[in-house]
């Protein structure tokens, strides 16, 4: 408690507004909202100054490139201004404010490699596929990992526990892109179990987005390899965390109390042990989501799945700075949003946070 109190920012003790402020910043969800907002703001700010203050910054490079290609300096500057969605003649701080305003409205300038399409339109086209594959992958691995973790904790020091712990810890040590390449080499090329040529891309030719079962099936078919890799490489951390957490929870008095009251083992395992042991895992979600989204750069490239990760890798390779800036900001925002949802869930599951 002493630690938690020290962390809150000092705010004057008296008066109505300070009191409200104090109560607000003391509230779990308000703090999380502030933090989420600050994270997005921080990334936006950093990318802006990185692009503008770097020696040989991308805007200068772009303008010079256009001039050497015979385009008049004035026109080149105008093009650069429209590409990066900024006014090059204004002072930097004003450019920065305009940029923040534009970002808030979702205007991220235009892409260099795709002439004529805006960064936001590219992101809208590619982001859903990554959210879809990473989201389903993490959901499956979370549920499976939690169940296996409870199983290992209940059967601790038996062969089930040893096999599960060692095998999953070993798989976790293998970088996810190596798992992806191995899958391609063995399942796709050597044993020819799956048709990797047909599985490329996000949808089969001729299938369009609609609310139908065939569309969902096709989308899942194309996403199955990335999903499988996300599940395989992240399940270990969930399982190990859940196992450790369950072991400490099993020693709590309320577990014995529940059993003594005559509740069934399953009921105690789910409603008493599981529900409490799962709480520490929510803090890990942030790291897991960030890791999976970061890994999507590699996984999507390997399976030629057209999501935002593979788009980002392409944009970096082609030095498309407006697109890089936009995508980095977007994926950070999506991780932030996922974490907010997790925080909401967490405060629903943990009554101690609701009361405070």
């Amino acid at each position, binding site marked *: 408690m002493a630690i938690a109190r020290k*962390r809150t920012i000092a705010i004057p003790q008296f008066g109505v507004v300070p009191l409200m402020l104090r109560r607000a910043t003391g509230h779990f969800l308000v703090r999380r909202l502030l933090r989420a907002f600050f994270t997005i703001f921080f990334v936006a700010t950093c990318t802006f100054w*990185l692009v503008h203050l770097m020696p040989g910054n991308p805007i200068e490079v772009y303008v010079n490139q256009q001039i050497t290609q015979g385009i008049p300096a004035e026109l080149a500057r105008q093009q650069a201004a429209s590409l990066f969605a900024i006014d090059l003649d204004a002072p930097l701080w004003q450019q920065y404010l305009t940029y923040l305003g534009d970002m808030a409205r979702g205007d991220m300038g235009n892409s260099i490699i795709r002439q004529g399409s805006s960064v936001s339109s590219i992101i809208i086209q590619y982001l859903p596929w990554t959210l879809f594959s990473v989201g389903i992958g993490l959901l499956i691995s979370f549920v499976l990992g939690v169940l296996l973790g409870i199983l290992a904790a209940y059967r601790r020091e038996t062969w089930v526990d040893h096999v599960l712990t060692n095998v999953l810890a070993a798989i976790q040590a293998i970088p996810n892109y190596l798992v992806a390449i191995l899958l*391609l080499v063995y399942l796709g090329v050597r044993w020819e179990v799956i048709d990797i040529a047909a599985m490329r891309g996000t949808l089969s030719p001729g299938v369009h987005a609609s609310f139908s079962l065939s569309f969902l099936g096709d989308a899942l078919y194309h996403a199955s390899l990335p999903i499988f890799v996300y599940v395989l490489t992240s399940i270990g951390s969930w399982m190990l965390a859940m196992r450790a957490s369950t072991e400490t929870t099993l020693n709590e008095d309320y577990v014995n109390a529940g059993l003594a009251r005559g509740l069934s083992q399953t009921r105690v395992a789910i409603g008493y042990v599981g529900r409490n042991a799962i709480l520490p895992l929510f803090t890990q979600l942030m790291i897991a989501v960030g890791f999976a989204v970061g890994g999507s750069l590699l996984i999507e490239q390997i399976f030629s799945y057209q999501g935002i990760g593979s788009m980002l890798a392409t944009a970096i390779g082609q030095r498309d700075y407006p697109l890089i800036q936009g995508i980095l900001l977007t994926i950070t925002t999506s991780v932030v949003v996922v974490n907010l949802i997790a925080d909401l869930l967490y405060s629903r599951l943990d009554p101690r946070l609701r009361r405070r």
Partner: protein
Amino acid sequence: MAVAQQATTPKRRELPRAFGWLGWLGSTLRIMRRNKIGFAGFLIVVAMTLISYIAPIFWPFDPTADPMSIYKTPSSAHWLGTDSQGRDVFSQILNGGAAILSVGYIAAAITTVIGVALGALAAYLGGAVDTVLTWLSDVFLTIPQFALLAVLAGFVHLNGIWGVALLIGFFGWPGLMRAIRSQVLSLKEREYVEAAKMLDMPTSYIIFREIAPGMAGYIATHFVLNVTAAMYASVGLIFLGIVPLSGVNWGVMLNLAWTQGAIFFQDSLWYILSPMIAIVLFQLAMLSMSRSISEIFDPRLRER
């Protein structure tokens, strides 16, 4: 009396020091041997590190392409076959470890120094410093790390091993910082720290001489895990072709195998598998070593 002491002390000091160090090494190895898996991991890590740094001196890599022997299966001439340009894969594996391992070790060292310093500062000073550092670590944990590294590697033109290691090392600290912070928060309430505070010792002395030794095992475990994380990131970046590391290394081998479409050739299996096996073996060895490290630094397990 005084003369006799002066004559004997240097002699006495000379021997026990050397023996003391050997003794420390001996008891460390004895403790490590208790944990069989951890000891095996330790041996593999030492062997792979030694081979990676020493082998290039004796068996340098021959980069000349040989179009007559493309994608050969393992034979007595080429132990692991040949690559897309007919070059020996085994020699590439021997010569290709140093760069990747160097990036891993250097980056992990940087991460550890930053993480320990910031974590200890946040926990020890508390107040506004703690609030700001905790928020910063939260922010950096939220940004997908590999994406951030890839973007920065695209913006900044990295040169060689040090450039890559600095970049990776500089952004790995948030996780370690939080772990160290919570450790220090519990350690700083201990009596011996209180005693040092009473004696009016400087903050740096308390952090580095009183608190840090208590976390040595913890820090060492995180160092090992950070080596594996840095290897993951560096090989990933090289594989994507974002970091132009010249020369031979396991990441470049993977990148070449991928871009040349080696996976579709029937006889290229060993060419693709060898760098992967090298990387995975090292990662697994590191991971199992990390399990026994906390035991090494536990003073209660030492006899003297």
